[in-house]
């Protein structure tokens, strides 16, 4: 019974999320919307790189920036997708209170709501990568790709991001008026501290430890290594670690943040119920 409730909560939330994400327009406009935003974001970096390097796209720095930026789309999509469900349901649709009294498992419902963003994020990542390979000299030799490492890292990372989203969802439950900023600000800060588009050693020394504590740093590094192994060796940040060591660190940090997320969500959820925050709307 418990399993069926959990699965139903997750499945229906995923479907609901997909419908909300996609049915506001016709499929063509939705496709344009899904493509234009991420490709434009990547193009800004490509042009910046192209201007400074005077069109030398052979440097290891280019795939480092491009791949880091492409996979970072998942951070915004999955993490913010889960936490945004609270804002959407409470403030916009005003249905969160009904969800709470329905026979569903709330954390799984919120995680399910992130699935739609994961799907649209995956499309965006795929298109960004395809544009890079087809038009921008991002060289990925598919015969040399470490697919096992790639998919293992991808799955661990997406789960880790979803759990971070749950943590933010808990904080969002307790926040008034700034809830919309929480996800975006966290994603924006992680963009800097994870070395997504520049090696961590570019950061001031006193800020680098924050980057080393973030699981997204290791996640992006492994994704790059699995796709273009030689790129990783070109930067000193994690060069002394083997793939397996980095995977271990990623798994450990994911477990750590996942556990914290569950407890933080439970704590915030309890307080939100006690203080009557579940059905509070602020009209912001």
């Amino acid at each position: 019974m418990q399993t069926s409730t959990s699965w139903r909560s997750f499945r229906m939330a995923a479907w609901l999320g997909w419908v909300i994400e996609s049915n506001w327009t016709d499929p063509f406009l939705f496709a344009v919307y899904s493509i234009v935003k991420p490709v434009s974001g990547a193009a800004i970096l490509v042009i910046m790189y192209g201007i400074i390097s005077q069109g030398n796209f052979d440097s290891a720095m280019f795939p480092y920036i491009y791949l880091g930026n492409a996979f970072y789309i998942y951070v915004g999509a999955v993490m913010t997708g889960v936490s945004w469900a609270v804002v959407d349901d409470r403030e916009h649709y005003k249905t969160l209170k009904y969800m709470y009294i329905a026979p569903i498992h709330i954390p799984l419902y919120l995680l399910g709501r992130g699935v739609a963003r994961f799907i649209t994020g995956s499309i965006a990542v795929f298109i960004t990568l395809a544009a890079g390979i087809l038009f921008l000299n991002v060289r990925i030799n598919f015969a040399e790709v470490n697919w096992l490492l790639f998919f293992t890292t991808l799955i661990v990372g997406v789960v880790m991001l979803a759990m971070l989203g749950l943590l933010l969802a808990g904080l969002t439950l307790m926040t008034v008026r700034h809830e919309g900023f929480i996800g975006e600000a966290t994603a924006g800060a992680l963009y800097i501290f994870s070395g997504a588009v520049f090696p961590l050693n570019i950061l001031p020394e006193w800020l680098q430890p924050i980057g080393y504590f973030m699981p997204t740093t290791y996640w992006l590094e492994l994704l790059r290594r699995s796709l273009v192994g030689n790129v990783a060796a070109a930067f000193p940040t994690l060069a002394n670690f083997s793939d397996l060591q980095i995977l271990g660190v990623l798994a450990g940090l994911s477990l750590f943040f996942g556990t914290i997320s569950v407890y933080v969500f439970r704590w915030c959820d309890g307080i939100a119920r006690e203080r009557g925050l579940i059905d509070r709307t602020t009209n912001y």
Partner: protein
Amino acid sequence: MEAVSKKYSHKATGWRLFLKTIIARAYPRIIGQQREISWMVFEVVMPMLAVISYVFVYRALNAPEEYIGFVVMGGAMTAFWMNILWSMSSQLYWEKEQGNLALYIMAPNSMMAILLGMALGGMLATAMRAIAVTLLGMLMFGVTFTVSSYLQLFLVFMLAMVALYGMGMMMASAFLMFGREAWHMANLAQEPIFLASGFYFPIKSLPFWVAAGASVIPLTLGMDAMRQLIFPTGFQFGFMTVQLEIYILAALSVVFLVTAKFLLARVEKLAVREGRITESRR
């Protein structure tokens, strides 16, 4: 009691009503800032995160220092574009969602005055954020500005703002016809515009026709001209001469304001006829 017994002759009409409406609509924009200071923190922090990222990308690429200044200036100007998208273009849509739009239409004031008030208030409030981003950028990354002509800089900035907010007023009319699409449309008009308008790099780096097309957005030429005026080597990166950009911005200001007036009247009529003023499509 006194208020009830007072004569009804204080009712403002004509240009007085127009002016009062502008001030009344600008008021909450400016005062609202003071009442919710914490919002300002977020609204400064968010563009700063992008600025920091792009500055470090340029640093990783060993870019000349001018580019750091370009990023800081672009980051400051994003505040205006975000204000146009979320607080001008989408504003009538939000008002509709909250039920205020019908009151605006029923009231004896001009909708154009309401939009002008929104623009004026938004411009002043956003200027504070843009200044905060610039100051933080100067402090964090040691960016310095050397103004070659204060008069031209003032002219460029003011014309860019008039044209930009004229464009926002025009877009507000179009957004009035949107339902749930409004949020997505505003969301879609962020990164592509940051790219096309050269918020983080000189627009000259884009192919000529792309840059020329992007010049329809007033911030494109506004930023290009300002970069030429506040950085000693800025003129090397200019897409057109500052003088020509001033003429084009002046023309854009007139075109956008006039179009906004006509479009607003037309769309308002259409929305009333089709019953979209009170319709809320969540």
